[in-house]
């Protein structure tokens, strides 16, 4: 198998799993959001990796007859980035509200308060 072969995909999977781990293992809500955006960015990298053609150039028409990389993953991810920011803003606003209501952004402490009352 020629380098880089599938190597890119494996790095992406590692990054994705790191994001997933942060989301599951950490109790702090803001850190969970960071983990979620790491996960998201990794998925973007995965899509763009698939769109690359060896020896290709950016999909903007230029004179001559060059090889273009696939523009469709780029379009998809462009939309996904912007929607990602929208969800991030929404999540952070919810965290601010939770902090207002419980005085903490640690999941464990919120849980404890819920069980006490």
């Amino acid at each position: 198998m020629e380098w880089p072969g599938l190597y890119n995909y494996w790095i992406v999977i590692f990054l994705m799993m790191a994001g997933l781990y942060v989301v599951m293992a950490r109790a702090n809500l803001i850190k969970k959001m960071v983990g979620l955006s790491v996960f998201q960015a990794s998925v973007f990298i995965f899509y763009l990796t698939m769109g690359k053609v060896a020896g290709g150039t950016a999909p903007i028409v230029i004179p001559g007859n060059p090889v273009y990389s696939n523009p469709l993953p780029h379009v998809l991810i462009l939309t996904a980035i912007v929607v990602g920011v929208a969800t991030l803003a929404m999540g952070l606003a919810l965290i601010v509200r939770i902090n207002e209501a419980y005085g903490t952004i640690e999941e464990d402490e919120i849980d404890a308060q819920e069980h006490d009352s």
Partner: protein
Amino acid sequence: MVLTVFLIIRLHNLFAVVMLSGIYSLLAATFFVVVDGVDVAFTEAAVGAGISTVLMLGALSLTTQHEKVAARSTWVPLAVVAVTGAALVYGTLDMPNYGDPDAPIHNHVAPRYIEDSLKETSVPNMVTAVLASYRGYDTLGEVTVIFTAGVGVLLLLVRVTGRRREEDEDAA
């Protein structure tokens, strides 16, 4: 990027974590340039590294800067992550190599857009042509999503600032 992610997992100072996530986005943007996604790199650098970081810093200033070290078991998440990762790696074994021009993704509808988009829309940038012309309604839907999120954020935060003001008045 692997180092950045490792630090995000280890550090407990949330300010540093947020900054690292900005750096991670910037690194992702440079990678997008390498794989020819110039438009995506542009957006990721502006939105991912810029606006997201500002939003998170705003949330930090309204909450707290330090993460409490929780005494919870890390074995279950680690096991889940390992199993999922292994399954995904197994999935990639059937995938075409990086940059392979014969990959199925490049031989379905993509050539049509590459060949005809300039003729049909007279926009030289194919990404723009697809986003604004062929998939214009999807972009409109995307704007609706952002609008909804903006309204939601405003509704959530107006109550926060409103209550703060009442407390201030009570104190005064």
